[in-house]
């Protein structure tokens, strides 16, 4: 066990799985970074934010493949390689670039198994950065996990910390289905204790980062940290919160969400993705259908407005959910007149 950043945790997961399984290969734009450059340094970048640094040196050019800037071809190639014996981890860099290769994910990889009558396995992982808060503007800041969650055949992972990232990524690489693994770009330097050895965290099992009596806060990815910060403040004001991290948006741990809502009777959902048809909507519908009788107050969603992500700092701050907004939402549901629950 030692302190590791989100970036190091991911690098270590990749390294350990590549050592364990020779069929694991990496591909993506500048995952090594430097092929064909005049310095002769072939792993100059190791990923645009250094996440895959050093892997080329250890595993060589046959397993760490720089690609042209050509998402449709190499994401499709990753799908084809997965269906024919490799376990590719393809890096899409920014998840926004899925616009260039959605067919290869949505119509090819996700559907092989079903369309082919259960005869295909497509053990593919697509890693991509997501999220606002980096002044990266509208084409480099989206949180598109609802888009992937919508597509049957895909599993979708949104880790909330370095520990979570390592265990979930190893699970993703060992999984036999296509997995979309989304890393919040603001979190790469977050640090916490992470075991040195390989470990897995199963999909579809929510993590309760704290348990309380009054309100359940479901938060996704980077929002988990914000929810915990809000819950700390609320605890000092006598409001006790459960914070639930679903870890994966598909499979979704519906059971634990419902149990927490049964216990607390109030639900706030914090979701960084655009507000229409996002996970907050999906989880709201789940609770409305299956735990309506337990609710003491209407569900509240803490979500951005229905706009592209703005560039300028004050606008981006307005756009983003944060601990203040979560705190306000929790207080609002606490102030709802308690309904008698029969």
């Amino acid at each position, binding site marked *: 066990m030692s302190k590791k950043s989100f970036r190091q945790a991911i690098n270590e997961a990749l390294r350990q799985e590549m050592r364990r399984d020779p069929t694991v290969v990496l591909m993506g734009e500048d995952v090594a970074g430097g092929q064909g450059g005049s310095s002769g340094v072939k792993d100059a970048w190791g990923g645009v934010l250094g996440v895959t640094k050093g892997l080329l040196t250890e595993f060589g050019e046959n397993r760490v493949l720089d690609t042209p800037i050509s998402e449709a071809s190499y994401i499709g190639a990753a799908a*084809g390689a997965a269906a024919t*014996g490799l376990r590719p981890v393809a890096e899409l860099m920014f998840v926004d670039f899925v616009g260039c290769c959605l067919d*290869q994910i949505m119509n*090819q990889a996700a559907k092989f198994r079903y369309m082919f009558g259960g005869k295909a396995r497509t053990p593919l992982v697509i890693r991509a950065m997501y999220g606002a808060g980096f002044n990266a503007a509208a084409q480099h800041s989206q949180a598109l996990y609802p888009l992937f969650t919508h597509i049957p055949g895909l599993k979708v992972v949104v880790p909330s910390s370095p520990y979570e990232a390592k265990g979930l990524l190893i699970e993703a690489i060992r999984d036999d289905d296509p997995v979309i693994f989304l890393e919040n770009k603001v979190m790469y330097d977050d640090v916490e204790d992470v075991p040195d050895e390989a470990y897995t965290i199963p999909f579809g099992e929510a993590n309760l980062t704290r348990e309380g009596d009054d309100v359940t806060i479901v938060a996704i990815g980077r929002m988990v940290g914000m929810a915990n910060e809000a819950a700390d403040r609320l605890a000092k004001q006598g409001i006790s919160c459960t914070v639930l991290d679903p870890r994966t948006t598909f499979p979704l741990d519906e059971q634990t969400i419902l149990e927490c809502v049964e216990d607390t009777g109030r639900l706030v959902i914090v979701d960084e993705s655009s507000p229409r048809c996002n996970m907050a909507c999906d989880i709201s519908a789940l609770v409305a259908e299956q735990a309506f009788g337990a609710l003491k107050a209407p569900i509240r969603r803490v979500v951005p407005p229905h706009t592209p992500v703005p560039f300028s700092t004050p606008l981006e701050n307005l756009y983003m959910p944060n601990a203040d907004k979560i705190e306000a939402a929790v207080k609002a549901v606490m102030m709802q007149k308690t309904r008698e629950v029969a």
Partner: protein
Amino acid sequence: MQISRETLLRSYRAMRTIRAFEERLHREFATGEIPGFVHLYCGEEASAVGVCANLTEQDTIASTHRGHGHCIAKGVDVGGMMAEIYGRKTGVCRGKGGSMHIADLSKGMLGANGIVGGGPPLICGAALSHKVLKDNGVAVAFYGDGASNEGTTLESLNLASVWHLPAVFVVEDNGYGEATGSSYACAGTQKDRAAGFGMPYMECDGSDFFAVHDAARDAIDHARSGKGPVMLHVHLERWYGHFEGDSMSYRAPNEVADAKKNHDCLESFRERAGQDKLLELSALDEIDAAVADEIESAVEAAKQAPWPEEADLMADVYVKI
């Protein structure tokens, strides 16, 4: 190089099977009993068979909407294909794929594809698998002149060259992308496109099995020997519409009749086999009769096969949830 008697017999049988399979589908589709979309490969048989005659079961292919011929040429079970097209549980994809998604990975058949240009990126991946796993395999993308204009195809030509993959890009040029002529829709030439990505280019008459076989052998040998990807441009004519039900009002009235009369790959195979004394015509006639029986049985079995059940709806979305 001489083609072995065994290969010639097997190839003729595959071409005859494709022809009989497709002609029968054409008739059965008109009765309304076949659901969904069907795109027939009649007239193009020598392309799939001439290429696949040079492949092993370990090699991989990816196909198109017009995929029945590639499936048969790569050895996918004909009865299972027919049942699949009828939507039955005994189908090769258990009735969940249909005509546009027939696949059998155990035969190296990575699937027909409902998306134009869907196959070439997948074939880059299959070729990468062959390269990394060092199994000496080759991956072949069949795609049409229509798909040759897709970005996915052009990106794949680049990626295959950059990664020096054991891949063959077979452009099946039947002159039409749906209803639009390739003379309108394809700028420049396929040859120049290959040159633009630094890969060798070969072309052949797709109505001549022997021409396709020899060109494909050279292309596949090139890729298998580690020299990188190749483009093989096969000139073809399709005998039916883009899909069944297409009135083909965009084609001159005599175009298909002329193709059937003058560019029938099965007839030209028989002529060549007789002239060069490669095979006895009686052996070919026996194949014709056996294939007719096989297709009849496949249709009968498909019509009587069970439908998928309710439990099949939710099965196989994932390996494991």
